[in-house]
């Protein structure tokens, strides 16, 4: 059997990255924790943003983590799916807006 690149149980080991670079690892986790605290945005809003970005980044660990986080915060599956569509819309929009560059180039090159 082939061994997959991603192992769901590796998410639990995320904290271990500090073992090989303690100061930077700790700074990262302090920052990370602070970012997700209630602020001008609610923790609930931040969780939905994180879920959308997790999908555009296609990070399986983040998807697992922020799906669970959303459930813990009482976020409904309809809200989660809409958040993912926001990410998908920006991704496809980002692709399509480059169509203008293609059009500019065609217009420049064609007689």
């Amino acid at each position: 059997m082939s061994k997959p690149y991603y192992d769901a149980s590796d998410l639990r080991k995320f904290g271990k990255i500090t073992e090989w670079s303690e100061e930077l690892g700790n700074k990262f986790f302090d920052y990370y924790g602070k970012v997700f605290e209630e602020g001008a945005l609610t923790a609930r809003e931040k969780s939905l943003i994180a879920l959308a970005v997790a999908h555009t980044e296609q990070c399986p660990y983040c998807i697992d983590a922020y799906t669970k986080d959303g459930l813990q915060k009482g976020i409904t599956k309809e809200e989660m799916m809409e958040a993912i569509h926001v990410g998908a819309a920006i991704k496809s929009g980002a692709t399509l807006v480059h169509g203008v560059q293609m059009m500019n180039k065609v217009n420049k090159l064609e007689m």
Partner: protein
Amino acid sequence: MATKSLKARNNDIANTQRQMDILSNGIFADGELPTFAKKLKETNQFPLRPKKLEILQINLGYMCNQVCEHCHVDAGPDRKEIMTIETMQQCLDVIKKTEAHTLDLTGGAPEMNPNFRWFVEEASKAGITDFIVRSNLTIIRANKKYYDLPEFFKKHNVHVVSSMPHWTRGKTDKQRGDGVFDKSIKALQELNAVGYGKEGSNLKLDLVYNPSGAFLPGDQMGLERDFKKALKEDFNIDFHHLFAITNLPISRFLDYLIASENYEDYMVALVDAYNPAAVANVMCTNTISVSWDGWLYDCDFNQMLNLKVASKVKHIADYNEELLQNRNIIINQHCYGCTAGAGSSCQGTVA
């Protein structure tokens, strides 16, 4: 969803020894996760000892009109274990002399005990200052004979604590059964109508939130804010506080965790979220739990695992508070459910 208790289905998880074996073996036996006792020892909190007794929690029976997926009691319509009037009388004798200021009635659906009202009236006369009934809400709409419960609760200034897993129909009905959401909403509106849950009202109405799946509850204050907003906007419902309670890995929730292959991940999540600060205020340190047949336990969960108090006094008939208070609390891996994150108790978070 199931319509019968694990017991009626002859499911082997209904056997408390089987539950204890699951909780003691597997990832805890091979050392992958530390036992709860080991965790307590790390912070010199072992053995766990009672503090001042504040709450007498009496389980009036396992009969219930609902069969919730996560129920730690394995309650349901087929459960016939209910407290007799003789045992209630023994409880009343204790209520008259206990130091505890709060009487907490639970079940099953405590209102289904035929002597429930008599017991409330007698206990009320005995001068309990805080009187809690854990109502599943739908019982108020289940049968005509229960329609006047809001008025009855009001008359005895009962503090009503009700389960409500989500402010949406889908999530609520999935955990608690079809139609539960609509009936619960109607019951809450009726409690509001007699004055319960209103701002400034001394008729206290609190809600209990249990996660509807293999995840821990989020921040209690954040959830309370979301529940209040949604229930007010959608149904004009008011309530006082929301208690976020963690599902403990016993009984029907344990069965669900195993069947859905979530057991190990859930236990890892509980152990990871272990908070030594929550240990100081876990409810077994200020509560005695009494079963329908009068046996004494450190908490309702130990009751469901048949772990009677480690004391010479084990039954309400022999009740002696001084002797009882001098005991070690019985613990096992399910206790991680009360110490995760901000902690969990029948009164919500503890840390």
